[in-house]
């Protein structure tokens, strides 16, 4: 299929004003004052070039630089990047709100943006009037709105309040109505910018479902979000922006997200595995040789992980002699070095303990998914003879490995970000009465 959006060498330059005043806008008064003081200086010293002190310093800033990509019809593209990477500027250029400085964009078809739903709602007008107004603002014709009017009202569930000014609506009704209008747009290209950050849970969910449907109907979706889970679920291709330039354009959504999450955290590199290089922790009963947090394949982690991915703690050790009271495990600490828990091979009933025999033994413990919160965690090795002797004691002499959890916290529409508390488990709730 042919490209529906073609972006070539797109650039957008802004001037940053470093004015003496902290005002966000220019006042004519200041401009006149500056110009006349310049004029005054020139008259007093006609042969000297006007000093530059009076001029506000201007700094150029490229919000977008040399961005080129193509989007085919029906593709769902996620755009990610840090704050100020140029995502919103890109969307603004694509939806024609602002003009580019260089380059060009070709778009076939109508672009509708869900940049903040409810734009242009007027509180004094009734629901009915706002449907027409908002529809027109979003680019629908009058005939089109009339045709879909009943559907919109149905969807928003506001029949009784159709002729009430929206200022008397509950916030839920307001959002429902706003979304209903937006949802009934039929653009060829839908641009969504972080809508999930606003509105209530249901609305966020509706949004996601809607975008899913829109894509399935063969329409094109551009989705900007910080919510990696949503991007991963919805998008088949991903664009990663950094400082205004496009640095990834890939179908490998997962790996780009991983790379992005892993990126730029300026913390010093924290190892996720430990190898016994020398002859440390030598003991006739047990000598650890390897300790790591690994992914499903058993590879030590190289990046932050989503919380819904399996995590394994691996311990490899040489067992010299058998001792029935041998306990091996780890201690888990959070970023603030608070101890969260210990986990040992001997935690369960005796028949469930792993069988440990002389030779090289590898032990694995699966950390439950969706149990920890977002953050950096530290694992320390724990080994000894129960109540008798410590071989490796956490916080005293233990090797440590680290891992980081980012995102994937929950499928709940309410919890897109880190939850309060040390842990963020998902427990079952039932109604009993």
């Amino acid at each position, binding site marked *: 299929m042919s490209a529906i959006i073609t972006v070539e060498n797109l650039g957008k330059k802004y001037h940053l004003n470093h004015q003496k005043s902290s005002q966000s806008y220019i*006042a004519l008064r200041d401009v006149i004052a500056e110009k006349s003081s310049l004029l005054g200086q020139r008259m007093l010293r006609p042969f000297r070039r006007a000093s530059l002190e009076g001029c506000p310093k201007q700094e150029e800033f490229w919000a977008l630089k040399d961005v080129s990509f193509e989007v085919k019809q029906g593709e769902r593209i996620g755009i990610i990047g840090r704050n100020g990477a140029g995502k919103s500027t890109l969307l603004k250029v694509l939806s024609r709100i602002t*003009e580019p400085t260089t380059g060009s964009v070709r778009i076939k078809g109508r672009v509708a943006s869900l940049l903040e739903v409810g734009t242009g709602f007027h509180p004094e007008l009734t629901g009915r009037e706002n449907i027409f107004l908002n529809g027109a603002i979003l680019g629908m014709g009058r005939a089109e709105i009339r045709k879909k009017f009943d559907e919109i009202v149905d969807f928003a569930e506001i029949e009784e309040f159709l002729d009430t000014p929206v200022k008397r609506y509950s916030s839920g009704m307001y959002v429902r109505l706003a979304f209903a209008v937006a949802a009934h747009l039929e653009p060829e290209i839908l641009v969504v910018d972080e809508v999930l950050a606003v509105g209530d849970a249901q609305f966020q969910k509706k949004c996601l479902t809607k975008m899913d449907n829109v894509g399935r109907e063969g329409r094109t979706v551009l989705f900007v979000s910080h919510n990696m889970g949503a991007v991963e679920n919805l998008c088949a291709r991903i664009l990663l922006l950094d400082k205004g330039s496009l640095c990834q354009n890939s179908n490998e959504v997962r790996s780009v997200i991983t790379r992005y999450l892993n990126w730029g955290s300026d913390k010093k590199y924290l190892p996720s595995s430990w190898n016994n290089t020398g002859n440390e922790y030598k003991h006739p009963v047990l000598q650890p040789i390897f300790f790591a947090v690994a992914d499903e394949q058993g590879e030590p982690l190289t990046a932050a992980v989503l919380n819904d991915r399996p995590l394994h703690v691996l311990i490899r050790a040489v067992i010299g002699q058998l001792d029935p009271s041998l306990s091996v495990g780890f201690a888990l600490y959070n970023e603030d070095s608070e101890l969260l828990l210990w986990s040992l091979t001997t935690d369960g009933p005796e028949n469930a303990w792993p069988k440990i025999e002389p030779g090289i033994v590898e032990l694995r413990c699966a950390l439950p998914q969706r149990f920890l919160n977002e953050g950096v965690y530290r694992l320390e090795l724990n080994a000894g003879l129960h109540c008798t002797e410590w071989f490796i004691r956490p916080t005293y002499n233990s090797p440590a490995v680290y891992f980081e959890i980012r995102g994937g916290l929950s499928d709940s529409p309410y919890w897109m970000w880190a939850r309060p508390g040390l842990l963020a488990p998902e427990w079952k709730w039932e109604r009993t009465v």
Partner: protein
Amino acid sequence: MAEQHEIVIKPGMSVSHYWRDIWRYRELFFFLAWRDILVRYKQTVIGVAWSVLRPVMTMLVLTVVFSKIAKLPSNGVPYPIMVYAALLPWQFFANSLAESSSSLINNSNLLTKVYFPRMIMPAGTVIVSLVDFLISIAILFGIMAWYRYVPDIRMLFIPGFLALAFFASFGVGLWLSALNVKYRDFRYVVPFIVQFGLYISPVGFSSAIVPKEWRVYYFLNPMVGVIDGFRWAILGDAFPVYWPGFMLSTLLTIMIFIGGVMYFRNMERSFADVV
């Protein structure tokens, strides 16, 4: 609007597209004007009464001041009608100016979220003032009936003079709205223009009282031409149009309008970034 069309976005988009876009966005234009009209009459407690009271009160005050106190001539026409005939275009002009100059700022949330040719924003507010104008003209007939004053066929010229008033209002409105986005303290200038303009325009008096040798210069205020036109159309030969001056006013109006369009188009590019 649903037809498949290719849009090319480039720095300095071509002008031809712009006018085509205005046509394409005509429905949004009507909706925005319709919204402003609805809101205007819903929000104010006295609603429509407001647009009746304002011109009538102004007329009474001006009549008392200029006729009873200053004893200025009215060429045999009831003074209130003479004042009111001038108030029609003046109020239209003043309202349009006040509304359109702030239209872009007031709708900044739309400006930064949705694309449309920005010109429909100030244009919409002029349309709203036009509704007020129509209400005022209905009142004029009431006043004429009260004074048993019979207008003649020249009333048919009113739409022509109204068009002139429209271009003057819209032209100045374009200038002010664009300037207002860039220089936010410009909003303080607008009430001044409106207030000051009421006294330098021949609203409370006839332009004939201006000395002959200064008369042409008086028409450098484009509203003088418009007001004289209205007086002539409503009141007849008692207020002959001073044609050289009228042509000058018309010429200036056209220049202001064209200049306004050009300036607005030039500034428009940066609205979303500045607002």
